[in-house]
């Protein structure tokens, strides 16, 4: 089957890959580009584990075709930290024990980063509704919400 050559920018670096028409962006990231930090929890847009930011917009990478990403700028969990310096959200997730198994964590971090870029002072309710598409089965969300709120506070202060 013929594949399409797709040129993108991923985490600030040019990235190219070949994609069959039906390949999802999630599978392309994981299997073609080798970025396995983005997870598949459901493949149907119901769990948010595959969250990435495409051209500034938070999306489920399982609900987007890889070929659609031609010319796009993509941010994944692997690009959230700057070199060795963790993003405040990443630090706060560790500090607050906002992860247990850690499988949903990349999706939560990417989604929360997208929230804070739009709203640097979200209420608890806003955080909860923004993150409603990210399922966590371990934590009951309490520590996740606190970590996001505190990261926002720190970023506002900085």
């Amino acid at each position: 089957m013929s594949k399409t050559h797709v040129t993108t920018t991923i985490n600030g670096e040019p990235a190219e890959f070949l994609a069959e028409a039906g390949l999802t962006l999630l599978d392309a990231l994981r299997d073609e580009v080798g970025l396995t930090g983005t997870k598949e929890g459901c493949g149907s847009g119901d769990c948010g584990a595959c969250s990435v930011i495409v051209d500034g917009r938070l999306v489920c990478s399982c609900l987007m075709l890889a070929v659609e990403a031609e010319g796009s700028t993509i941010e994944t969990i692997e690009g959230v930290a700057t070199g060795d310096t963790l993003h405040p959200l990443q630090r706060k997730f560790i500090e607050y024990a906002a992860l247990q198994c850690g499988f949903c964590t990349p999706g939560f971090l990417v989604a929360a980063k997208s929230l804070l870029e739009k709203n640097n002072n979200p209420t608890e309710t806003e955080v909860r509704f923004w993150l409603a598409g990210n399922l966590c089965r371990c934590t009951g969300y309490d520590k996740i919400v606190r970590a996001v709120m505190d990261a926002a506070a720190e970023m506002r202060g900085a």
Partner: protein
Amino acid sequence: MSGLSYTAPSTISEAVALLANEAGLAKVMSGGTDLLVQMKIGRLKPSLIVDTKKIPGMIGIREIGGCFVIGAATSGALMGEHAGLVAAWPGVVEATNLIGSTQVQGRASLAGNLCNASPGADSPPAMIAAGAIAVIAGPNGTREVPVEAIVTAPGRTSLGKGEFITEFRLPKKAARSGDAYLRFIPRTEMDIAVVGCGIAVTLDAAGVCVAAKVSLGAVAPTQLVVAGAAAALIGNKLTDAVLAKLDAECQAVCKPINDKRGTIEYRTKVAGVLARRVAAIAFQRAGA
């Protein structure tokens, strides 16, 4: 997914030709949030996907003399970011911008939500109540139809081969008018509507309803326009008696099914409940 092709034409006529000439199943894609799921579970096996997002005008909102033209592939998130649209048609924006998660809201489009033809779709009742018109491009040119004329049955639309929706038009908001949409879901997010209700009303200076349109979702094979419910509102203020009549009119037209999301009995009752709550919001927005 073998034998699948993808193409992203840059003009409407190119898209129409691709859709019209495909021997197998051609599917229009905008946000893809329903299409990809249907493909994954094997319910749809298209041979061609025509991505309309590269066509100028398919994404975006234009205000023309108080009317709104919304590109068919526009997402709920974009609509929510358009202050003018939010001010004029808050019910339409709310209905579109609560589809799925934040992640889905950035992709799922008005046209996709409509043409997926699910009885539980959120945006159609609000669009119908608002009097939205769909502009359809096809091999024989363009035509305009009310949104309620698009879906004919679950999974089926009135669009012919080669046709697709290019834009939606919302009328100029009348003075002292308001619209609203509510749905009932078991959780607070992430569910398909068990019942959805969109209402748009116009009041006179005394606060009496002079025009109304009521639409219900998820209580019949297609979205319903509830004329009796509108009639219950017109000529009245929102008294308890009027609300009771509205509730009863809505319940009377429901023809839902029992399924994993709700029972016939429950959907019918909640249709009435939602209608009352939605009417209260719409009246309040209209200045009552």
